[in-house]
């Protein structure tokens, strides 16, 4: 199992060399997508490789010349990598119009360091029939732009096939998450993060094959005996960018295991599947419109989840997920300068308090340096949850 996991980790560690090699070997095009909600299936159906552009690990050196200091880490880091030429293998960049930071970095990026295709994917901030029609038209425009870049038409059959490939990946990742809940402590939070992030950075078919291998081993592996006083935690937040894996290690080093999460580089990425029948573009529009919404788009009373009865808001969603996963507490990771999620934390805190779920808000920022101090807070939180659990 460790060997397979190491392959995923290697992809997350060195994503771009691998992609450059892939491009040389296949002669195909690569389109980068900033988080979240870009329908990768359309890019795939055009015979190109979609990859998600996440924050890099390098210290930021060029982006600060152009961006204000309260831009979020994702925007600063991704743009910095762009300026450094690390992403020059990209044939296109798609920026979803979900928040001001992404919207505005697009304009600067387009000015300074454009790729052949620069596309803003405007997204509706509501979830109703009018929004669906709007979404469908936007996807049509996106499709046309991709067809121009690819030099060929995206046929309905090709799109249906791509949807199928991506749905398979989603189902496999959900299976992995299900096994993580069932076998707490078997997979480390860092390892699970590696697996999901790798899905964003490599061809889906290959990732799906690796997942098959992994799932066989995870299914066969016994649940490790729980450490005395083991505390199970649910991770909320970090909706765009992956968390610092060191932070996850600290959480788990203090006698807690992560049993589930709500991260973009986690459950959000594969929570639901695209309907396999009907018009594929319409199916995509409906799917992406109904995903777990970004905090900028929180339709508080209209958070409709397919397969769920009635609306559910973000707090109710987190409470349900935490309960279903058997978590004893919730760690909320707030990315510094993600104002929309910051505001979202207020009602979330309130709701979790009312139902008596212990929770800790952690502000995550680049080059934290204060991980030691964060460690005290996390450790104290875990001690508190453990004591409450025993009481």
């Amino acid at each position, binding site marked *: 199992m460790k060997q397979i996991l190491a392959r995923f980790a290697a992809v997350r560690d060195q994503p771009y060399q691998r992609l450059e090699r892939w491009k040389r070997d296949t002669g195909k095009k690569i389109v980068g997508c900033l988080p979240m909600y870009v329908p990768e299936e359309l890019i795939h159906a055009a015979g190109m490789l979609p990859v998600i552009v996440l924050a890099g690990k390098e210290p930021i050196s060029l982006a600060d010349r152009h961006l204000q200091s309260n831009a979020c880490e994702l925007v600063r880091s991704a743009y910095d990598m762009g300026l450094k030429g690390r992403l020059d293998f990209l044939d296109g960049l798609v920026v979803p119009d979900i928040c001001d930071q992404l919207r505005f970095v697009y304009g600067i990026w387009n000015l300074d360091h454009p790729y052949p295709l620069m596309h803003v994917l405007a997204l509706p901030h509501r979830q109703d029939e009018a929004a669906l029609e709007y979404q469908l038209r936007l996807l049509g425009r996106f499709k046309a732009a991709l067809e121009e870049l690819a030099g060929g038409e995206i046929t309905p059959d090709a799109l249906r096939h791509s949807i199928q490939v991506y749905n398979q990946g989603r189902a496999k990742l959900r299976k992995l998450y299900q096994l993580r809940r069932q076998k707490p402590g078997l997979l480390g939070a860092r390892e699970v993060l590696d697996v999901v992030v790798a899905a964003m950075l490599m061809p889906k078919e290959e990732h799906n094959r690796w997942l098959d291998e992994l799932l066989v081993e995870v299914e066969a592996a016994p649940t490790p005996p729980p450490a005395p006083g083991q505390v199970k935690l649910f991770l909320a937040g970090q909706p765009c960018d992956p968390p610092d894996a060191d932070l996850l290690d600290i959480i788990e080093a203090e006698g807690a295991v992560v049993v589930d999460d709500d991260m973009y580089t986690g459950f959000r990425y594969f929570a639901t599947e695209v309907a396999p029948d009907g018009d594929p573009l319409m199916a995509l529009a409906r799917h992406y419109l109904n995903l777990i919404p970004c905090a900028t788009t929180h339709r508080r009373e209209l958070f409709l989840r397919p397969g769920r009865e009635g609306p559910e808001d973000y707090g109710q969603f987190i409470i349900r997920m935490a309960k279903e996963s058997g978590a004893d507490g919730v760690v909320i990771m707030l990315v510094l300068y993600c104002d929309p999620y910051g505001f979202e934390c207020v009602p979330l805190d309130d709701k979790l308090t009312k139902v008596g779920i212990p929770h800790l808000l952690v502000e995550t920022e680049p080059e934290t340096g204060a991980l030691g*101090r964060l460690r*005290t807070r996390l450790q*104290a*939180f875990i*001690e*508190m949850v453990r*004591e*409450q659990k025993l*009481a």
Partner: protein
Amino acid sequence: MAEYGKEPGKPVEELIVAGVDIGSTMTKVVIRNGRTMSTFIGPTGAEYRTLAHKVVEDALNQASLGFDDLAYVVATGYGRMSVPFADQQITEISCHARGVRSLLPTARTVIDIGGQDSKAIKLNEQGRVINFVMNDKCAAGSGRFLEVIAESLGLKLEELGELSLKGDTAIKISSICTVFAEQEVVGHIADGRRLEDVLAGLHDSLASRVYSMAERIKLEPDVVLTGGVAKNIGIRKAMERKLGYQVLLPPEPLLTGAIGAALLAKELVLKAIEQGQPLKKERRPLEAARFFE
């Protein structure tokens, strides 16, 4: 090592345990020998990584005990990871809560202002931690803030609080940043403002900073102040003005964490005996922390 609760070991009542609280500024050791307690307080200094064992040795000598007499050692505080001879590390949040619970059982909130950080801990009726908040990002709202000002004004840290009470009109000082506050203080003095008024404003500023952080967990009486800064009467009075009621103070505010650590050590031993579990896997000698381990 003596085996407690087992023949021919000593009775549980004579259990000897230690709590070691290595703060950023002061190191505190509490040794509980049955019902009696001996304590030791000394500066942490830059060498604390290698000196924790010396402090414990001194404390043991004072109590005429040897390291082998200790059934269990709990380390806490900022430097808790640098106590290789401890049997367990527990955060200062849990230890302060436990200490306060035994000293002042009516406490519902603990506000601890230490050398480098401040925290507020909410306790339920049983004295268990139900929420906490920490300022761990900068020196504003910590003892360091007062140290910096005392240094730049050539005053003793101990006299700041009393002096501040003699102020008539508190001069407003920014509570955001220690460095800026120091500049402000020096500026006001240069402008000929009364030292006492400046200090009154300064204490108000620190109390405001800590109060607004602590209020995030909804302060509830009784409020207990702990940590070195709790000894400053100016801060205590300023805090009481904000709260609108009196705060409680343990007999020695520096020691609550170490007392809590010793109490938790005792509980862990008793629990282990009750469950018939071996107390610990491996006992490490009383020695300095080694780097690279």
